[in-house]
């Protein structure tokens, strides 16, 4: 007779891994401080504190940023701005820059005495910083280009009285983006007005006319086809994923309905699909699928 003891083993495993993880993170701290011999005492303490407090959090933040960046690059609409994530990231970049500066000053002093001191950690730090900065820059540029494109649409949506999502531009965009959006559309409008619009009859002077034969407001193409990866793994308040169902073969999946065709499809966990954006919009916002 077989006794299934997997759950007991799993419990034991949890205990041991917890200890290991603790010690390994301690090791990391030790390793990282090796690089900075000439750092002042204060800097050392500060660094240890920041590394200890949020190492795993930092990694997950970075992954979140990458996901956010990918989604933003591929989705047709402007996604809500990740306020807290970006504040944290920008703060960390600032910290890192300062740290590298302090470290390299230490190197200058040390140079005459010990050339044994490896420069590898410093190099890695700089490269890593560049990578992160590129990510942030690309993310923001991508958002700006969308703000340009949907400028009138965004403005129109924010002026609607009842709109939970677009109602507040400051939720959708960062402070700087709102400023950019306002100023840029103002400048553009001024150019249009001065160059041609003022020569037209009054009823043709609007730039956001939707009554005419063609709507002047460019709306995001909600039916754009996108590639998605179904990742699942979101646990909501019920303790499990409440949207998860099973298909005929008993595999876990989400079921979505394409409205125009009235067709139901199952999105298997771990699979890649090409699908309309409007269909998976909600799933993407909840982090259940990511765009690739």
């Amino acid at each position, binding site marked *: 007779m077989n006794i299934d003891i997997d759950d007991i083993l799993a419990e034991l495993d949890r205990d041991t891994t917890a200890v290991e993880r603790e010690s390994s993170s301690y090791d990391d701290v030790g390793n990282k401080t090796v690089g900075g011999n000439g750092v002042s005492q204060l800097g050392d303490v500060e660094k240890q504190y920041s590394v200890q407090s949020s190492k795993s959090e930092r990694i997950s933040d970075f992954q979140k940023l990458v996901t956010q960046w990918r989604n933003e690059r591929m989705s047709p609409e402007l996604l809500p701005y990740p306020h807290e994530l970006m504040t944290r990231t920008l703060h960390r970049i600032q910290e890192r820059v300062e740290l590298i500066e302090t470290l390299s000053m230490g190197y200058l002093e040390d140079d005459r005495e010990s050339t044994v001191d490896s420069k590898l950690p410093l190099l890695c730090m700089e490269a890593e910083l560049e990578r992160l900065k590129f990510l942030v820059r690309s993310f923001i540029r991508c958002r700006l280009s969308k703000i340009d494109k949907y400028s009138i649409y965004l403005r129109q949506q924010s002026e609607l009285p009842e709109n939970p999502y677009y109602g507040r531009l400051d939720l959708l965009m960062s402070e700087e983006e709102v400023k950019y959006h306002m100023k840029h559309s103002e400048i553009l409008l001024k150019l249009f007005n001065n160059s041609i619009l003022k020569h037209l009859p009054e009823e043709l002077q609007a730039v956001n006319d939707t009554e005419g*034969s*063609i*709507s*002047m*407001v*460019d709306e995001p193409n909600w039916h754009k086809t996108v590639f998605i990866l179904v990742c699942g793994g979101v646990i909501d308040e019920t303790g499990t994923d409440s949207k998860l169902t099973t298909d005929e073969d008993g595999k876990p999946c989400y079921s979505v309905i394409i409205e125009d065709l009235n067709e139901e499809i199952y999105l298997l966990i771990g699979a890649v699909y090409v699908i309309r954006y409007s269909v998976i919009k909600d799933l993407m916002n909840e982090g259940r699928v990511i765009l690739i």
Partner: protein
Amino acid sequence: MGYYDIDDILAEGTRFPCRFNYEIPGLGYLEGNPGKPISKHSKLELPLWMVHLLAVVGAQSGDINDTEEPLPFVELLPPDLFAPRVLNAIKSGAASLDLHAISPYFYTLAERWATLFSDKELSQVLKDMLLERGQEINNYAVSVSLHSNQGQTNESAVFLQMLDEFEKQIYRDANVNCKEMKKWLAMK
């Protein structure tokens, strides 16, 4: 299909044959003789942007008790673009058809036409054609050599001449992506 889309604007300038249902004074300049009225049943070729409204909107006749559906100003006549001859040619061999000669904006126009008249058959034909030609476009776009100038054979040049503007856009995107990918793989 945006307001500021240049290809769209160009496509909308294509002329379509239509017939007037009313005699309208002062519109003679559409026919080329200004100052004179346009006569009923006269045939004209008008650009799509003008015609697609005129074919929907009717005249407000003076009769108040006239409850019938108003007759639109103009009636669109079936254009050469979507004549049975063309549709048959598409059905028989979409991949070898010279679409550019028929119209450089065939897809856009056909889409408009199908929307305007809810033409199921035309949209089906279009869909099949796009699929069939899409495969061909993919074949030509993928087979690029890194030194593109020698790579472009006579055959592919002839093929490119037959694409309409929408397909050219697809070809260009696919081609550039393939080329970049190959470059990246080769350069490391």
